[in-house]
C-alpha cells in the first residue's frame, strides 16, 4: 500500500485511540499529525513497521507527553499519561508487540463527532477530519467554503466538545437508535454531497466511513443497509454522465456499472434484511437494488416508496413514489400524486414533473416545467441535459397560415 493510503487508513484508528488516552480531540490531533509527519520521514527510509497503528500511537503519545511536560497542564484526565511521563517516552518499537491489543475506538470518536449538540455542518466537517483523515483544506474545497471558515468551524466544534463535555463514548442502548440515526445521516449527507462530482471524492469518503461503521457495528441492520445503499448508487457512477450530460437510468450503459460493487451491496442488503428489523436505509437500499433490475418491478418499488414515505414523512420520497405510480397507472396518475406535494423549491420536482407531463403529451406544460428545473439546476451535466429537454419541448414556430 502506498504511504498515503496507509496514512488515510490509519488516521481514524490512531486519532481515536489518542482521544481515548488524552481525553482531548485537539491535543490528540496535534500529536497524531506530528507522528504521521515523523512516519512520512522515517518509513520510506527504514521500512514500514509491522504494526503501523502501534507505531503511530506510540509516537503520537510520546509527542503528547512532550507537549504536556512543556505546558505543565497535567489534569486528572491524563492519569494514564502521568504514569508514562514518569517513565519517559518510549521508542515506538516498544509498543509494537502489544499493539494488537490497542482497542479500536473509532466508534466512540464518530459518536462524539456526530453528537446532536454540534451543528450539522460541524458534525460533517469533524467526521471528515477525524475519521476520514481529510485536511481542513480538502474539506473546505469539498463544501466550497473559504479555508478560514472551515478552519473556524472545526476549531469551534473541537472547543465545544472539550468545554461542554461532549462524551467520548458509544451511547447507552436507550439513546442508541436516535444517535445512530444522526451518525448515519452525516455519512449519507457526505455521500450525497459527493454525488455531484466535486474536486474531492466525497462519495468515496462516505463509502469508506460506511465501511468502517458496518465493520464496527456488524449487527446493526441500518449501518449495513446504508453501506449497501451507497455501494449500489455509486456502482452506476461511470454510467451516469455521458458527453457531459446526465443520463437517465433506463438509458445508461449497463456495461459501465461496477458489477463487484453491486454484488457487495446486495450481499450487505441480504445480511441487513436477515436481522429482521426494518429502517429507512434498509428500505432505500432495497429500492436501489430493485432499480438495478431489468425489467423493473414497479409495483414493488411503489410499495416500498410508500413504506419509506410513512417512515420518513418525506415529500421527496412521495415524489419518487409518483414516478413508480406513473409507470404502473400512467403519467396522469403520477402527476395527480405530484400535484399534492409542496416541493416548488426542489429542482428535481420540476424535472420529474416535466418528464411525466412530456409522457402525458402535454408538451407546453412540460416545456415550462423543464425551464423551471433548468433555473434550479446546480451542476453542468444536469444543466446540459435539461437544456436539451427544454429545446426538444419548445413549441414549434407556427408555419401554418393564420
Amino acid at each position: 500500500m502506498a504511504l498515503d493510503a496507509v496514512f488515510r487508513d490509519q488516521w481514524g484508528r490512531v486519532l481515536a485511540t489518542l482521544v481515548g488516552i488524552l481525553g482531548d480531540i485537539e491535543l490528540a490531533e496535534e500529536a497524531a499529525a506530528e507522528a504521521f509527519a515523523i512516519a512520512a520521514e522515517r518509513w520510506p527510509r527504514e521500512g514500514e513497521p509491522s504494526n503501523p497503528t502501534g507505531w503511530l500511537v506510540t509516537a503520537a503519545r510520546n509527542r503528547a507527553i512532550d507537549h504536556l511536560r512543556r505546558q505543565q497542564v497535567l489534569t486528572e484526565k491524563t492519569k494514564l499519561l502521568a504514569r508514562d511521563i514518569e517513565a519517559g517516552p518510549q521508542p515506538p518499537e516498544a509498543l509494537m508487540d502489544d499493539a494488537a491489543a490497542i482497542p479500536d475506538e473509532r466508534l466512540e470518536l464518530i459518536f462524539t463527532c456526530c453528537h446532536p449538540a454540534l451543528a450539522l455542518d460541524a458534525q460533517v466537517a469533524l467526521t471528515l477530519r477525524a475519521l476520514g483523515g481529510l485536511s481542513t483544506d480538502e474539506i473546505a474545497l469539498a463544501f466550497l467554503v473559504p479555508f478560514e471558515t472551515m478552519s473556524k468551524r472545526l476549531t469551534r466544534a473541537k472547543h465545544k466538545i472539550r468545554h461542554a463535555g461532549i462524551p467520548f463514548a458509544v451511547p447507552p442502548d436507550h439513546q442508541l437508535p436516535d444517535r445512530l440515526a444522526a451518525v448515519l445521516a452525516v455519512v449519507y449527507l457526505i455521500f450525497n454531497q459527493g454525488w455531484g462530482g466535486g474536486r474531492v471524492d466525497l462519495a468515496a469518503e462516505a463509502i469508506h466511513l460506511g465501511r468502517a461503521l458496518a465493520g464496527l457495528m456488524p449487527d446493526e441492520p441500518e449501518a449495513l443497509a446504508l453501506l449497501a445503499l451507497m455501494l449500489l448508487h455509486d456502482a452506476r457512477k461511470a454510467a451516469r454522465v455521458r458527453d457531459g450530460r446526465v443520463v437517465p437510468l433506463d438509458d445508461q450503459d449497463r456495461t459501465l456499472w461496477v458489477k463487484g460493487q453491486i454484488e457487495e451491496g446486495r450481499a450487505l442488503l441480504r445480511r441487513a434484511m436477515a436481522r429482521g428489523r426494518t429502517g429507512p436505509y434498509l428500505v432505500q437500499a432495497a429500492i436501489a437494488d430493485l432499480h438495478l433490475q431489468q425489467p423493473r418491478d414497479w409495483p414493488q418499488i411503489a410499495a416500498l416508496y410508500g413504506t419509506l414515505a410513512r417512515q420518513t414523512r418525506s415529500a421527496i420520497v412521495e415524489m419518487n413514489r409518483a414516478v413508480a405510480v406513473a409507470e404502473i397507472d400512467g403519467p396522469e396518475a403520477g402527476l395527480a400524486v405530484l400535484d399534492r406535494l409542496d416541493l416548488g423549491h426542489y429542482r428535481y420536482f420540476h424535472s420529474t414533473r416535466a418528464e411525466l407531463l412530456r409522457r402525458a403529451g402535454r408538451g407546453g406544460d412540460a416545456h415550462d416545467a423543464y425551464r423551471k428545473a433548468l433555473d434550479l439546476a446546480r451542476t453542468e451535466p444536469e444543466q446540459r441535459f435539461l437544456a436539451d429537454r427544454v429545446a426538444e419541448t419548445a413549441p414549434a414556430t407556427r408555419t401554418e397560415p393564420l
Partner: protein
Amino acid sequence: MQYALLAYSPPEETDRAARPIPGGLAALLDRPDVTGWARLHADESATTLRNDEGTTLLTDGPFIDSKEYLAGLILIEADNLDGALATAEELLRETRPGTAIEVRPIINGRLRGA
C-alpha cells in the same frame, strides 16, 4: 462537570411570584445533583447596567429583549454533556409549553446557600 441550566419561559398572564413551584419541579430541584437554583421575577422587574466605555448606562428592562424571558437558573453536577442534557430534559417536562432550557458548562464559580 458543573453545568448551568438557563430556563427561558414564554410570557404569562398571572403573577409567577404568587405561584408555588409545581410539585414535580420541586422534587427535581431537591435532587443531590442539583447544586443550586434561583427562580427569577418576571422581566418587567429587570434593570440592566451597561459598561459604555467606562460610563455606566442604566436601562429599565432585560438586556435581551425577546418574547421569552430568563425565568430561572439551575446549577447541576453531571458526568458529561449527555448527563446534563438528560437532567435538563427531565426539568423541561415539568415546565409550561414554550419553555426553553439552555445548557452551559461552568468554568468556575461559587454559590452560597440561598
